[in-house]
């Protein structure tokens, strides 16, 4: 590691508590992070300064997600509430709507929230139900997941299909035709993370039993990827979907998806980290990679073909989140640690 230049940090703050979610606004101007106490911090990435902070919920937060087109993001908590917040050009924040799911029959613990690509619906997973809500906060439809609590969900990158994973496999619902029978991809085991390939042809899940499982959505043909030391929950695509990057080991594992999918042969393993990789992010252009591991090391790889990272840095504890700015030309990387530090790195010198 001695021959590698260190990555410079352009902004750093202590969140006070462990971060639970971090997300960029669609334009890449704002970065929002929420900690376990529901304290939200919004940072203007253009100036590297914090512009707003407040407590979003009375109880523990579980996630936040920016709207794909509007300066609006949703936050959700352990008590059945999803709140939508809007930020204006003057950086003033206001709550625009609230979705309350708690009822006697509901598990109030909201597991996930994900916006559809066109921003017209927000999927909210709670217990074994996913509800689709309008940006105004109205519940429009519900999708059941009979296998149990929803373990992961992901929108099709180009359309209206919603993949819901959990114990027993994946159900793919069509949000534009909610009464249509879902596509069923069965697997005996518990699926905990989910990711579509950028072209939507493949869907891959990280499993409780330290494997990853990939399906061709069209043919339902499936492949098992094993050999991980930990659960491979990090499933990130690069190079327009030609590479799948997985965590779950201390090596960055790169699977080729040029033609057939995961069956193209043994994956490439890039050694650098000393501990298991627990966060992976790919730049908006799909080429450069950031990987973070359990002891706080972060590595920046110019491309999936690199034998060694271009640079690296170290956080104070386990890397919780890594996310590149979605702005096409930006090389800003946001990172958070288990102990509550938030960092903003400018990696333009390296990628």
């Amino acid at each position, binding site marked *: 590691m001695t021959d590698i230049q260190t990555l410079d940090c352009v902004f750093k703050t202590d969140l006070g*508590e*462990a971060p*639970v979610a971090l997300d960029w606004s669609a334009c890449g101007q704002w970065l929002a992070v929420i900690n*376990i*106490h*529901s304290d939200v911090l919004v940072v203007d990435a253009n100036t590297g300064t914090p512009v707003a902070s407040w407590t979003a919920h*009375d*109880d*523990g937060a*579980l996630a936040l997600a920016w709207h794909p087109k509007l300066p609006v993001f949703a936050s959700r908590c*352990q*008590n059945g509430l999803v709140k939508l917040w809007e930020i204006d050009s003057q950086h003033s924040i206001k709550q625009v709507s609230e979705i309350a799911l708690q009822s006697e029959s509901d*598990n*109030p*613990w909201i*597991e996930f929230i994900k916006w559809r690509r066109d921003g017209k619906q927000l999927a909210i997973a709670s*217990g074994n139900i996913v509800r689709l809500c309008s940006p105004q906060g109205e519940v429009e439809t519900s999708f059941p997941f009979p296998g*149990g*609590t929803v*373990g992961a969900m992901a929108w099709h990158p180009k359309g209206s299909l919603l993949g819901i994973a959990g*114990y027993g496999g994946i159900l793919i619902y069509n949000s534009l035709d909610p009464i249509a029978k879902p596509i069923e991809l069965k697997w*005996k*085991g*518990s699926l905990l993370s989910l990711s579509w390939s950028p072209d939507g042809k493949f869907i891959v899940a990280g*499993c*409780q*039993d*330290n*494997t990853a499982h990939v399906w061709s959505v069209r043919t339902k043909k499936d492949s098992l990827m094993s050999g991980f*030391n*930990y*659960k491979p929950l990090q499933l990130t695509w690069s190079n327009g979907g030609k590479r799948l990057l997985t965590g779950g080991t201390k090596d960055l594992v790169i699977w080729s998806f040029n033609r057939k999918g995961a069956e193209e042969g043994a994956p490439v393993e890039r050694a650098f980290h000393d501990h298991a990789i627990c966060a992976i992010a790919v730049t908006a252009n799909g080429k450069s990679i950031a990987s973070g591991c359990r002891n706080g090391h972060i590595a920046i790889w110019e491309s999936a073909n690199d034998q060694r990272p271009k640079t690296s840095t170290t956080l104070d504890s386990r890397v*919780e989140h890594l996310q590149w700015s979605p702005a096409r030309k930006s090389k800003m990387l946001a990172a958070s640690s*288990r102990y509550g530090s938030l960092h903003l790195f400018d990696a333009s010198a390296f990628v």
Partner: protein
Amino acid sequence: MNSKVPVTILTGFLGSGKTTLLNRILSESHGLRIAVIENEFGEIGIDQDMVINADEEVFEMNNGCICCTVRGDLIRILNNLARRREKFDRIVLETTGLADPGPVAQTFYVDDDIRDEFNLEGIVTLVDAKHVEQHFDDSEEVMAQIAFADMIVLNKCDLIDEEQQGHLKERLTKVNKMATIMPARMADVSIPKVLDIGGFDLDRALGINQAFLEPEYPFEWAGIYSLPDNEYTLSLSTGPDPDISLLCYPLMDQDQVELPDLAEKVFRHWAESPVKVKSTEKISPGTTHWNVDLEQEAEINIDSSQGGSFALFTQHTPEEFDLKVLDGTGNEIDPEEEHYFNAGHTHDDTVSSEALEFGGDFDPQKLNRWFSQLLQTHGPNIFRMKGIVSIAENEKRMVFQGVHMLFNAQPGEPWGDEERRNRIVFIGRELDRDYLEDGLKSCLS
């Protein structure tokens, strides 16, 4: 920050007093900051924002094997708690009354993230002393909760007398010889003791609970009867088994007899093949081992023409077969003295425990192979096991414990001057003591 967070699982059937104990744990001043994971409504957290509530979500890791079944809800909650671990010193995890403790315990072995952050210190099972016997035969959950326990809190002891308490302790010990049994009323047990069980501390378990070292007999009960010169009837109803073995041992001097002392003598006669006997047939006091056909109710005549006293030893407890001794007018005669024995594992279909103790040093490779084979073939039937064993040419004790097929071993304290004795406890179904003992001894170097 690098030490693992200790976790205590609190389990027990509905109405056993879990919530009472939990409230005591949270309200008493013991100086510990405790986070509670509650999976019934009415959750309690260490502070307002720590709302921790779990559905019972059970899933298998991959192939449907019970040994790889974990609790998904627990994994998510614990992962969430791991982010704020500086806020508390330990976790108490209360299960629902009907929860199977297996998947809960296995979660701490199977899931990598959980294993890295948390340490399962112990399982505390609350038992309603007044009502638990009703559930022994019809509730898998109750048996599993008792079998998995490191500590059994025998709650509501004020509702039963000492004799009943003694009997109940014997039954609990039969199922789980490893657990400490703590009598309580209103769950008034020492909180530090409950929380400081020590997951690997087999010495403690063995030290407190010596019952496992007592001999096991093929009979569960004995009573002394004084019967003048007359004919009496032994009345038996149908029960869990289609027959019952018994022996009427004549007593020369009743005052000099202690039933546990007599057991060794009777045991030798019990080894003889039983003589079958049916309803209305006659048995005589002596050394004959009788076996009564109980396909239907039976009334056996007792020939007491010689008069005097005898000790009636029965394979099962009187309660199981509604055993009564009746005089010529049909009046029931109570035993003048009775004793419940630590019975051998004659009920192969029930949960029981086997404790083994012997000397010698193990060959580690042989022992590994044997355990591997044992757990692959018998894993689902072995609820828990714990042991301290001596490994050849190793100064330290090897301490291990397991849940179903999951196994964890680590070096313990040095033996020093202490005699190197191997002590191993298995709790599970259909345990074959001879198979376990022979197998383990074959691994000695």
